[in-house]
């Protein structure tokens, strides 16, 4: 962005003050529009039903913090149960996906085996069809295994992501070879080199993939909807979806549940954003 000629410099300055004022106005208006839904969640979750549905729009709610305890004490909603289910499923999915996909990605990228390419093509072939499109056959398999309404049924079929394995392979291809060779000279095998040298030096990339896997596990809807037929096995998303159609739950509780389902993710997201942005820019990962 350095300007090399005075000619360019002048032009830049002339448009400068007005131009950047306009730029900041435009970007602020867009940002406000993007924040409206967050504002509505917070406002509505801390309102009474009357404030939400009343004729006069109030910008600020009356801050009904009691809505939180009311939500968790309401036996008809069982929101605590679905929060727990979502936590277990998202955490175990993340750990399992990282474990299986990173190891396979490393094997495909770095272990010289003569048929490695054929195996890699078999993995690539699975990328052609997104898993959402094959949910009917997966459901058939999982129901035959008797895994309906179980954590196993929710978690295990999603662990073997060809795409995540592919991303790890691409990442490990660029991992500095010298580090591994040093480990080998020290007498470590592939296994030792992987766990003691490769993984500890790849934590940024693992963090990016973990964030994305966790978010998509927490936000998943179709698969938990299909597998979770008993309300006890519902995840947060399935529970929220049931509130939309269920007329008996009060507005302020619905919005409080929505707020609680989103807030932890927003914090995780803001905290890990740097790695996430790097990871996406490098690989074009879809969340």
């Amino acid at each position, binding site marked *: 962005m350095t300007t090399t000629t005075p000619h360019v410099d002048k*032009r830049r300055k002339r*448009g400068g003050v007005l131009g*950047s004022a306009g730029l900041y106005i435009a*970007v602020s208006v867009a*940002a406000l529009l*993007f924040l409206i*839904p967050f504002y*509505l*969640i917070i406002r509505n979750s801390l309102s009474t039903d009357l404030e939400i549905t009343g004729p006069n729009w109030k910008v600020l709610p009356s801050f009904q913090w009691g809505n939180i305890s009311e939500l968790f004490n309401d036996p008809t909603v069982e929101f605590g149960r679905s929060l727990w289910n979502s936590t277990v499923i998202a955490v175990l999915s993340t750990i399992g996906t990282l474990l*299986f996909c990173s*190891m*396979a990605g490393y*094997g*495909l990228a770095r272990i*010289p*085996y003569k048929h490695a390419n054929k*195996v890699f093509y*078999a993995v*690539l072939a*699975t*990328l*052609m069809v*997104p*898993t*959402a*499109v*094959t*949910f*009917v*056959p997966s459901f*058939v*398999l999982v*129901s035959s295994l008797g895994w309906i309404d179980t954590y196993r049924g929710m978690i295990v079929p999603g662990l*073997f992501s*060809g795409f995540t*394995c592919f991303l790890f392979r691409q990442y490990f291809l*660029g991992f500095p*070879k010298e580090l591994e060779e040093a480990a*080998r000279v020290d*007498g470590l*095998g*592939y*296994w030792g080199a992987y766990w003691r040298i490769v993984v500890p030096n790849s934590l940024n990339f693992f963090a990016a993939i973990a964030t994305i896997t966790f*978010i998509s596990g927490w*936000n998943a*809807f*179709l698969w938990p909807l299909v597998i979770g037929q008993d309300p006890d096995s519902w995840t947060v*998303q399935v529970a*929220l*979806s049931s*509130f*939309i159609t269920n007329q008996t739950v009060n507005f302020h509780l619905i919005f409080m549940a*929505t707020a609680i389902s989103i807030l932890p993710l*927003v914090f995780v*997201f803001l905290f890990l954003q740097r790695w996430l*942005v790097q990871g996406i*820019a*490098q690989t*074009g990962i*879809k969340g």
Partner: protein
Amino acid sequence: MSTTTTRGVAQPAPAKASSARPRRGLRGNPTLNFWLFTGPFLIGLVIFVFVPIGWSAWLSFFDARYTVTPSHFVGFDNYKQILTNSNFSGSLVTFTVFAAFIVPTTWALSLGLALLVHRLRFMRAFFRSVFFLPTAVSYVAAALIWKMSIFNGVRFGLANTVMSWFGVDNTTWISNPTPPWYWLVIVTLRLWIQAGFYMILFLAALQNIPPELYEAAAIDGAKPGWQTFRYITLPQLRATSTAVILLLLIAAYQAFDEFFNIIGTKATWAQTPLMELYKTALGTDQDYGAGSAGAVILSLLICIVTLAQGKIMGFGGGEK
């Protein structure tokens, strides 16, 4: 990106490894270790990806109502039933209309946001975070806000409240298919969630455009603004634009969550392909044969798009 360079290095690697050969026992055996590392993943991949697809292809030729181990072979009847079913073809029309709305708007909005954020000198990280943040929100939660708060058909919905300030009557945004205002609801929701993600892709691409191009253009008398955008920025973003458009298409093809929660499966309009599969296989009919045939058809259709994507973006990461 780095594939070609590391492949170049990969050639002499066996020679180097052989210098450490004295230490090689089972721990250093490549074949054994390859299967040790990839085996668990591959077993899972076979059981949970390949087996269901094969099973489904098999089921699609049987009368498989309420059963997944059918015995009555029906040939291509399930395919005939699905392809002549007006709901199924209607769902492909829904996808086409949806894609026609969402792909260009997301492309334009995410590129526009990237151009704005790219030019910021102060608070760039803040604005990037604001636009990126909705990526963390689930489609279900967003559907709830859109349906019950923003586009609620009664007076307290935000859209109707704002419109009442200008003297416009309440609009039923969702429950009435004519006029099809529900598209506004569905499209703005997905725009809000997606735009920030694709903005990040465009921002990365913008940072890779060599500044010398702009300097040379300025010396040649190109006006900053539309001219440089049209003749430098846009062509330089071509690869990213293509990738973004294909990713958006594939994502639109799999649309389910927000349609399910805003429109619902009982409506006669705006039913997406996955919603039709859901109703066929898991609805009252539990017709796994027809559901499987539908999954096979949808998979074949998307294979074509994905292969095109692979051709353009280069799977395997080789440099062109």
